């Protein structure tokens, strides 16, 4: 799953980011593989606003679609099978 598919309140761990300059820029802002982020807002077909610790970052839809994530938290709680895996 990718970052643009998150729902509000959902917490995920970033798996991979696109390469190039944008990757380095993301790392500077604190986003890299293994970072835990929570979705605070999702504009319809627009940017995702994520929170990492106490910092909020807006990620454009196209970029968010290239960032793979693995679910933690909310969604997992709804899905019984996967709940145990990440609990």
């Amino acid at each position, binding site marked *: 799953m990718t970052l643009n598919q998150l729902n509000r309140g959902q917490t995920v761990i970033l798996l991979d980011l696109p390469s190039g300059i944008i990757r380095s820029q993301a*790392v500077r802002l*604190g986003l890299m593989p293994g970072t835990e982020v929570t979705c605070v807002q999702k504009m319809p077909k627009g940017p995702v606003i994520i929170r990492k610790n106490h*910092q909020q970052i*807006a*990620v*454009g839809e*196209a970029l968010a679609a290239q960032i793979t994530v693995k679910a933690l938290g909310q969604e997992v709680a709804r899905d019984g099978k996967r709940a145990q895996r990440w609990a």
Partner: protein
Amino acid sequence: MAKEHKDGHKHLVLVGNPNVGKSVVFNYLTGLYVDVSNFPGTTVDVSQGTYNDYLVTDTPGIYGVSSFNDEEKVAKEVIMKADLLLNVVDGVHLERDLFLTLQLADMGIPMLVVVNMMDEVKRQGIQLDIKRLEQYLGVPVIPIVAAQRIGLEDMTKKLATAKKGIKSTEISGLLEKYKDIAKGETEVLLALEGENKLPGVPEKREEIYFARRKRVDNLCKEVVHYKDNKHQLSTRIGDLLLKPAVGIPALLIMLYLAYRLIGVFAAGTVVDYLEGVMNTYYEPWVRGLVGQTIAPDTALGQILIGDFGVLTMTITYILALLLPLVISFYLFLSILEDSGYLPRVAALLDRVFNVIGLNGRAVIPMILGFGCVTMASISTRILGSDRERLIAIVLLSLTIPCSAQMGVITAMLSAVGFGYFLAYVFIMLTIFMLAGTLLNKLLPGKPTDLLIDIPPMRLPLLKNVVQKTFNKSWHFLAEAGPLFVIGSLLISVMKLTGAIEILQSVTAPLVVSWMKLPIEATTAFMMALIRRDFGAAAFFQMALSKQQILVAMTTLTLFVPCISSMVVIFKERGSKQGFLVIASCLTVAFLVGGLIAQVII
């Protein structure tokens, strides 16, 4: 650009993320005598001044030292020449700012860190362990509130105690390994980070960045202690403004307030008053003064003190019209900037901007355009790619009416009926979206990705806002003032040589039969070249039908921007693209104006 060291002067360089109050610290150190100059080969300005024995250079706000954009390239060049660095960080934003701090420490240049916004830190219930930060970095760390001058004296006392920061063990190891390849460790580090090439030094940017980021995260856990601030009003407002259902209406209210302040108060009341003053007192005075030595009816006399004279119209224009508009605009923009609101608007509108080939950051030039298209065209430099800068400039010169003309346009259209006003807005929006979409499709490439930090909302401090407004307005006038002079000179020359009359007779058929406007309309369009509002005002004096007013106002808005904007466009885009932009504006303006005329008249 950075000057060579003066004898005995140490080169002190200020470095920090954007909006951390670096310029307030810089102004405190250097006082009034500051030299602002353009860094060669870029559009980035660098300010320089002196403080005691220090030559002080301010660098553009950056998130890291590399070459991702012009700002970073300039900052890197300046940093490489520094004797010591003063790194300004935002205490509320250490998670973001310390990445740059650790990178600077790794570079091995003696430095100090000032933690700014300590008042805001307290207000948000954050506790910072400055001692621990100092211990970890190995350099003096000074808490300050720059806006209120708190801690700045302490900072100046500690300048002499600047030290090289403690590097991570990995970096130290790598630097030790390749130390024989280059003279300085700064160069080796930049080679390791893939910034420059040194034979034998491998590029390890990603590894170094990841490790540095982890160090920042761990350091923050030790140094920053948050109290739960969920219930704080500013946090709640900040979150609400990101919800489209609240954010969009809030944006509309904000735009309306801007219109009242800039479009109605500044562009109307203030400008009318100042123009009255200039026309009654200044212009007769300067005419009389110059007229003693140069006859007004000679060519030189016309150029200096004629109707479009450099000493008459241009000075009145700059002081009475431009100055109030620019000041009120920058005042509004500074408030928006300091409050942390703009990144939220950028996020809200990102999707819309994507359709027209831009990303949310383009909101700043677009908003500025309603103030002054010249000012906005200069600000397109902040956009992420050349493609975006071009699209923004085309949209600005084509569809955005600047505040000078907006007043007259609104007045004329509202007088003939609200329906005509709505039709005008609808036509402009449609062309804005169509032109943007088309450019997005035609130009190779795609919009750059939005990846921005959303800072907490905070109440702007009056003093900061005033200072910022003053700096920016001054800067703009210094840059655009000469362009306005060149512009009016051109028009004077055209008038003297009879070029204006020739143009009028050439365009007459187009205006009269295609657009169904009276023949004098050509003159109005020519006037609009000098000042957009002159053009609008010229239409105001003609006897036009309701339909003709709509055609005239639409064409006038789409028509090329004023002559100083054109000069900026040529300067920013080069002559080939500049010419294309102007030619397309003219084509679209007369095409659309004519089409509307053919349909409704």
